């Protein structure tokens, strides 16, 4: 204690003569108590703000290094260096609003999703309507396809799918001449999934394709990826994959397929018709009203990539839209 301080102390004690000097906390005790309190404040506040941070931003599963599978030349635009994303990346970054609107949270929320027994009801304008169990569907001829997947949110992945061509299924039920479109419906169970209110979009999720798009050899009903059964969070047990369209066209966990004469409704189009068109072909020249579609962030890369027309599948699919104004039919 400095002399000056000591002097002040003495003056204080003298000037408050009525206080018993024994009642005054000795300075070293006072300082110890203060340091103790300060330590408590540091620790306590760190616990509060740290747990608040953690509550809103849980650490995600550790993602493995990227896999080294390159897209096969059969189904990718030539010259593009596309390396498949890792299984961890593909299965921990999902838009599946029935479970969560947070992409990194879907995997955990979908872990106990029951996908057996499962069946798809196929009907509408077909000669042979019927119900196909997942076992029936898995017995169809399957193909392996490594496709780019471009999300409307301007990120993309490369995914090694396994599945049957939608064409194969449609040929077995024989669409009638009147059939022009294919409507799809997702499974929805409020006991296993969140409410429409929480997600902000209507459930069950519905999607649609023009019949010629549905019959295109690139269009898959995927039942697995990386040689494994479809992870719940990616749309188990069976989902649509249309690689030249934005990802949200790839409806997950399908339970119903209906052939129709008129354009079927699609969930995001109902939600915001000026933002999400029925066609939703990947098109760098037509921006989403709120963000650009000219470039994309490939998951695992720092620099953005140029987005390719029809997601790079133009050679295969551009002829489907020969006479169409793609700005109008976005």
């Amino acid at each position, binding site marked *: 204690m400095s002399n000056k301080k000591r002097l002040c102390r003495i003056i204080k004690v003298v000037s408050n003569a009525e206080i018993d000097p024994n009642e005054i906390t000795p300075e070293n005790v006072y300082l110890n108590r203060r340091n103790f309190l300060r330590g408590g*404040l540091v620790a306590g506040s*760190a616990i509060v703000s740290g747990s608040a941070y*953690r509550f809103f*931003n849980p*650490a995600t599963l*550790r993602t493995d290094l990227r896999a080294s599978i390159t897209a096969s030349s059969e189904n990718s635009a030539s010259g593009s260096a596309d390396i498949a994303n890792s299984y961890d990346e593909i299965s921990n*970054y999902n838009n599946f609003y029935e479970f969560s609107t947070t*992409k990194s949270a879907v995997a955990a929320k979908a872990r106990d999703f029951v996908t057996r027994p499962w069946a798809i009801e196929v009907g509408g304008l077909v000669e042979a309507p019927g119900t196909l169990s997942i076992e029936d569907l898995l017995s169809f001829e399957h193909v392996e396809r490594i496709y780019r997947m471009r999300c409307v949110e301007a990120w993309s992945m490369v995914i090694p799918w396994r599945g049957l061509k939608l064409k194969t299924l449609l040929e077995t039920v024989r669409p009638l001449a009147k059939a022009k479109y294919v409507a799809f419906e997702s499974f929805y169970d409020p006991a296993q999934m969140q409410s429409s209110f929480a997600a902000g979009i209507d459930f069950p999720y519905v999607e649609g394709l023009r019949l010629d798009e549905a019959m295109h050899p690139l269009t898959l009903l995927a039942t697995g990826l990386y040689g494994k059964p479809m992870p719940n969070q990616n749309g188990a047990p069976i989902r649509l994959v249309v690689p030249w369209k934005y990802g949200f066209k790839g409806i997950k966990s399908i339970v119903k397929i209906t052939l129709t004469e008129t354009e079927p409704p699609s969930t995001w189009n109902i939600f915001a018709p000026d933002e999400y068109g029925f066609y939703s072909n990947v098109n760098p020249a037509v921006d989403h009203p*709120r963000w650009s579609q000219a470039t994309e962030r490939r998951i695992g890369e720092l620099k953005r990539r140029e987005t390719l027309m029809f997601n790079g599948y133009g050679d295969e699919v551009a002829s489907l839209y020969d006479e169409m104004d793609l700005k109008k039919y976005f």
Partner: protein
Amino acid sequence: MNDVKFHKLLISFNALLPLCFIAYDGWNGQLGANPLEFFLRTTGVLTLVAVLITLSITPLRKVFGWNGLIKYRRMLGLYAFAYGCLHLVTYSIFDKSLIVADIVSDVFVRPFIAIGILAFLMMVPLAGTSTNGMVKRIGGKNWARLHKLTYAVAVLGVIHFWMIVKSDIFYPALFALIVVALLGFRIIYKYRSSSHRTKKATVA
């Protein structure tokens, strides 16, 4: 160390804690499949959180009489500005590759970018006048008037957030509610104290 100094350190420690978490998660590869998007979103949310904490000082003083809090308000505002800088820099580097022409065209084409940049630009004079010297130079009254811009920053920040989400408006709506409460408090407080004064005046 005196108490004010200690409390300032305590605030800094807590304000920088999220960055430590992000660094730790990043080091462990646990920021998810799209860490850049995570960082961009998180710094944006933290900017807004810091703005709202700054705006809650006045209601806390008026309601609980915790007038000592005023000593820390400028510092909280500066942390809001710091997170805002990180947010803007992340966007400029990783989304726009530092191409100024692209950023400028983004501002003109995309309202939510324009609103975000406007909110950031409004924070610049506030951060610039945060020293004691600047308060003295422009005068306390003018300084307080200038710093009412914080209200606009909060409102624009929430609109900016709301405009980028797709369908799940829970968090933007929550932030909007808090802003409405914080600004509503000021309006009601002002109205009540002025009507109180008029009443007194008529009685006199």
